[in-house]
């Protein structure tokens, strides 16, 4: 029998869900939805009496102080009646939103396990959300359900009674073998086959597959072809970045045999060689994350991943599982690292986009951002990992292809970075069970999105179950401590096929697919093999340790199952109940992909003259400052930061919001180990607004920004590790591929210039969206070339960390670094003040000197507050420092060391705006104790710098920021209150 229990709040005033529905409906233009009620529902199947269900509801499902419940057989009309609360009559529309069959339902799984505590064993449980709404048009109900209440990719919506009789479904798969015919197909037919099967293989790759199987004298089985597709996907093997490329750029023609190896990897190799015996890299570009030395006992590791395509379709689930995946990357590094900090960066469309301007199938940026934030919040907070760094940028280029970056930092004992599978080891899968979720994620992320992706690719969206990952983490770290496995990796894109395939790449493996524990019956061998069900890790376990390992798993409540053996025969052999269902030669699988030589072109960036746009009604310096503090990129992200637990584990020292006025941080700092003073510094850099005009400077500027963030907080410039995350749009045209090559060149140049090795990275290409508008016109939107740079720094003693908030009235303010007049891509351009001009260029030599000078002065205690100048420039930076410190400041623009182009006469106002707001990379604002200014000056011999003002006390009427114009004739005075209000708007 199937029961339904509805749990609802006794005090309707506390029904936030209903409030959100009313507000959301108004935003969607559904005016009639002025009242609503919500409940959490449970469908419980089993041979139970109503007294049993009542006991469950009382003891487990209902808060006795705040909630009530009602129950009945599912489908009973009484369940549609409005809840017995005041003013709930007249809510005849009842909408049920429940996870689709097969989609992970963490609450239901937890409930099912908990029911057993009460001695009741249900056959199945499913959770649902239920809404009572006023009488509405059918189209309005559909709109509400589609846009607000449910996510089409993962939910079923039932309006009116739930007519289900049973939740169970699925019968064991009956064994069959499917072969795929490639013989006799021309290129068009091969590509069609690839598309139909969602393989993301191109014709020349399928030629190689056909040739391989011709030599074996048989066609491939479906499972073999799928394994090849997963392994050869862009997601798994840097198809484009690893290609041979003939590049024609501004400085001539150059040929790469492997772009990535000859730029990013090469820089790391050269830096390590230069460091010689002092090389502090441990494991780079080969494991799931990059590992570097930390202290005498520990190494630290870091990885940043993207989860763009899944988040575009289901923001909450996409972001949560993106974070879950990168956490497992850290957990699956070496012999397992403990995750200690998370970071997240989102690139989305403008939040004021008109709903009518959205192509079909695209989620509004505001809803998307709320969804990804909630996903990171619910997953990260439950994992107990502080989310301490990040950024959000808004740009029309990301409207259809938002970018969701999630990163994790981990720590591990020294000498555990190297892991090696041994022949004879058991293949053990641990953690969550396998279901149909996430099938084709690896190949899906390698194809373009379109307006029908949402319905086509529902199966590739996963929902996370954070508590399974938390218990899995507890298990892995304990098993690692006891050294109970030889190697470990996570099941991410490609599922078992990628995880086991990679681990066994050198020695081969035999897997008995029927041994894999399933969420429900009915999965075929192929589905089991490529499913991307979350929260699973694969371990290589010496059979002698198997019993001990099982014991640790049981103690943590984790399922661990031996599903095969690493063989040593160099073959990947897949079996189903004793039948061999697929065999692949490991060498062919991992080395057999044919590479195609590509051509790329990069033109010199066009130089456009700077045009001042507001001459009719010129904005004052004050107008600009307030407008800049309020741009979506610059404005406070407090609403996001406060939803993330950024203090769990107790190690955060420089938090994302800090100082008496809770201002913004640059780099953030965590202790590596509680009770010890050595710290980890994280900085991120993203100059997305330059990507379209100059990909090289976009990448270089992002790297400098990430390093500057870390340096400002106190990181040692001699120990900065870098990560690259390339997100590109269409890459097939030579011109677009050229921008990727230019960005790679920038990575090489910057890493060498700053002796900062890249230790890990990832790319996400094909961020393109195709749609046909109402008029039948075809459109395509590509994201701007985007490199996210992450800097992993170290600080010897966290007590020496420096934060941007102003500290004491009377202290001097200095700027380090030259200001220039390149305004292209600046926030000043964004607010409509100016257009064109050149792109801000990185001067690596000057930056390196500035990093060194800042670090030396910090170590000598000469800088008590430090802020890198980035979005919004110098004046915005000073305002942010003042907000954080709750103190005023006075600066003179005339004192700022600047180098302006002489070609054009400049009005006094425009000169002021350039000095105040240009975003020249590599500059720092410093607060210097008044009594130590001479010492500070003495350390600045190698850099362009100047004192520009001082910190001012708060008067009886509050504090203010005063800016003296370059002509020294005008003083702009803005109160701290106004500044804070603009920043928090």
């Amino acid at each position, binding site marked *: 029998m199937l029961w339904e229990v509805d749990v609802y709040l006794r005090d309707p005033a506390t029904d936030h869900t209903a409030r959100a529905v009313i507000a959301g409906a108004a935003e969607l233009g559904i005016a009639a939805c002025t009242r609503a009620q919500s409940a959490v529902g449970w469908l419980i199947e089993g041979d139970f009496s109503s007294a049993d269900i009542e006991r469950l509801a009382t003891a487990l499902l209902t808060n006795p102080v705040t909630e009530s419940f009602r129950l009945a057989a599912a489908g009973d009309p009484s369940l549609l009646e409005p809840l017995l609360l005041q003013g709930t009559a007249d809510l005849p529309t009842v909408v049920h939103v429940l996870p689709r069959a097969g989609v992970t339902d963490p609450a239901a799984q937890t409930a099912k396990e908990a029911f057993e505590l009460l001695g009741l064993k249900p056959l199945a449980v499913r959770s649902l959300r239920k809404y009572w709404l006023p009488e509405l048009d059918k189209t309005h109900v559909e709109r509400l359900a589609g846009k607000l209440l449910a996510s089409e990719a993962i939910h079923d919506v039932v309006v009116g009674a739930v007519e289900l009789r049973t939740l169970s479904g699925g019968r064991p798969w009956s064994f069959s073998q499917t072969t795929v015919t490639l013989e006799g197909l021309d290129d068009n037919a091969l590509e069609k086959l690839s598309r139909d099967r969602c393989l993301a293989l191109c014709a020349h790759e399928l030629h190689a597959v056909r040739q391989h199987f011709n030599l074996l004298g048989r066609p491939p089985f479906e499972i073999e072809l799928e394994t090849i597709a997963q392994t050869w996907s862009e997601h798994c093997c840097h198809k484009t970045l690893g290609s041979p490329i003939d590049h024609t750029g501004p400085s001539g023609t150059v040929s790469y045999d492997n772009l990535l190896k000859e730029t990013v990897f090469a820089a790391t190799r050269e830096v390590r060689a230069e460091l010689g015996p002092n090389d502090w890299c441990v494991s780079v570009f080969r494991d799931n994350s990059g590992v570097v030395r930390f202290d005498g006992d520990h190494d630290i590791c870091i990885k940043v991943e993207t989860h763009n395509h899944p988040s575009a379709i289901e923001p909450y689930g996409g972001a949560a599982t993106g974070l879950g995946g990168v956490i497992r990357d850290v957990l699956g590094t070496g012999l397992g690292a403990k995750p200690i900090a998370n970071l997240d960066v989102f690139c989305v469309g403008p939040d004021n986009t008109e709903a009518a301007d959205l192509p079909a199938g695209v989620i509004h940026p505001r809803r998307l951002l709320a969804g990804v934030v909630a996903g990171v919040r619910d997953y990260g907070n439950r994992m*107990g990992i502080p989310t301490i760094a990040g950024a959000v940028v808004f740009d029309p280029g990301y409207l259809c292809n938002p970018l969701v970056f999630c990163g994790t930092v981990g720590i591990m004992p020294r000498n555990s970075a190297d892991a090696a599978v041994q022949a004879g080891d058991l293949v053990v899968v641990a953690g969550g069970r396998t279901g149909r979720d996430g099938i084709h994620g690896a190949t899906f992320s390698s194809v373009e999105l379109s307006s029908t992706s949402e319905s086509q690719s529902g199966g590739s969206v996963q929902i996370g179950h954070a508590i399974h990952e938390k218990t899995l983490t507890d298990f892995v770290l304990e098993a690692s401590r006891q050294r109970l496995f030889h190697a470990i990796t996570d099941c991410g894109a490609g599922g078992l096929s990628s995880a086991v395939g990679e681990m066994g790449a050198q020695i081969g493996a035999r897997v008995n697919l029927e041994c894999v524990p399933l969420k429900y019956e009915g999965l075929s061998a192929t589905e089991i093999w490529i499913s991307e069900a979350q929260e699973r890790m694969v371990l290589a376990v010496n059979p002698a340790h198997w019993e001990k390992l099982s014991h640790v798993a049981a103690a943590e409540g984790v399922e661990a199952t031996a599903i095969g053996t690493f063989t040593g025969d160099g073959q990947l052999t897949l079996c189903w109940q004793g039948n061999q269902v697929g065999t692949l030669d490991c060498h062919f699988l991992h080395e057999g992909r044919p590479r195609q030589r590509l051509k790329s072109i990069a033109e010199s960036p066009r130089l456009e003259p700077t045009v001042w746009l507001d001459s009719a009604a010129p904005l004052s310096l004050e107008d600009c400052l307030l407008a800049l503090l309020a741009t979506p990129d610059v404005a406070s992200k407090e609403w996001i930061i406060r939803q993330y637990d950024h*203090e769990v584990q107790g190690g955060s020292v420089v938090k994302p919001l800090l100082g008496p006025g809770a201002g913004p941080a640059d780099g953030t700092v965590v202790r590596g180990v*509680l009770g010890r003073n050595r710290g980890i510094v994280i900085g991120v850099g993203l100059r997305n607004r330059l990507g379209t005009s100059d990909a090289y400077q976009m990448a270089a500027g992002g790297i400098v920004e990430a390093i500057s963030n870390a340096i400002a907080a106190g990181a040692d410039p001699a120990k900065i590790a870098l990560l690259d995350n390339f997100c590109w749009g269409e890459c097939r045209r030579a011109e677009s591929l050229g921008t990727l090559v230019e960005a790679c060149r920038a990575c090489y140049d910057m890493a060498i210039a700053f002796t900062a090795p890249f230790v890990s990275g990832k790319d996400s290409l094909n961020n393109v969206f195709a749609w046909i508008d109402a008029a039948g016109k075809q459109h395509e939107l590509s994201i701007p070339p985007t490199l996210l740079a992450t800097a992993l720094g170290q600080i010897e003693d966290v007590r020496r960390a420096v934060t941007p908030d102003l*500290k004491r009235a009377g202290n001097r303010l200095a700027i380090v670094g030259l200001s220039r007049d390149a305004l292209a891509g600046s926030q000043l351009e964004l607010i409509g003040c100016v257009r064109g001009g050149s792109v801000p260029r990185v001067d690596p030599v000057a930056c390196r000197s500035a990093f060194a000078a800042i670090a030396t002065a910090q170590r000598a205690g000469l800088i008590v507050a430090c802020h890198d100048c980035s979005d919004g420039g110098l004046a915005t930076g000073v305002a942010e420092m003042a907000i954080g410190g709750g103190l005023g400041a006075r600066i003179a623009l005339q004192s700022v060391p600047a180098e302006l182009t002489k070609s054009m006469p400049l009005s006094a106002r425009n000169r002021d705006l350039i000095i105040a707001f240009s975003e020249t990379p590599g500059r720092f604002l410093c607060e210097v104790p008044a009594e130590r200014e001479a010492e500070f000056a003495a350390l600045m011999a190698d850099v362009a710098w100047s004192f520009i003002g001082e910190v001012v006390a708060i008067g009886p009427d509050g504090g203010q920021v005063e800016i003296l114009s370059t002509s020294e004739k005008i003083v702009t005075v803005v109160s701290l209150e106004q500044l804070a209000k603009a920043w928090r708007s």
Partner: protein
Amino acid sequence: MLSPRAMILRAPGTNCDHETAFAFDRAGAFSRRVHVKALTQKPSLMKNFQILCIPGGFSYGDDIASGRIFALELSSRLADVLHAFRDRGGLILGICNGFQVLLQTGLLLQGPANSPAQASLGHNNSGEFVDRWVNLRADPNACCFLQGLHEFELPVAHGEGRFVTRSIADFDRLHSAGQLVLRYGYDQQGNSTNPNGASGDVAGLCDPSGRVFGLMPHPERFITATQHPAWNGHLDADAPGAGLAIFANAVKAVS
């Protein structure tokens, strides 16, 4: 003298166990993390400890309600052990999720048997999880953990922390029994720092004996000055944080 022993009791989803153990160790205890599975299999473990702490986290995911399943597990399998532990002078501390657990086990609110619970922790008024620092006022009465504490700051990080009683009479009864020992206070500008809409600004309460205490804020996140968001330039980096006193008080009370 031997250090008192503190058991940090964890369940699947507990995630503040390491830093809570660290806080107890700093305060002079000898702490050990114990999985609730291990304790149910061997309840006699409890005999070796003088302090029991249920730390923060999302036990069993908090998917149904915060702390509900962990509380049910404790009251259905370990109620006798826990009552005996308290009655022989043991101290019990619940932090955040641990407070949510303790409140639902009945260990904090000893009403008449089978009476409905008088108090609970509901969803924050904002409807959202919030991580921020709050000002607190202690009115220690019998509470062992708060002796000597008056006004101090700690961080909160929760989505379900709004203290609510079944009726005003229930609130008054807890108040007159001296159990409402910790309240949210005001910041320097005079704004309330109540982060969740808790009735009477209640942030924590103790049982009538003063030996069982639950609170929403996280004292283990303010053991050293550098954990404060405005320490830089304002506090001595080596100074202890206000939260340490709560653990030190517990150690002192059983020493």
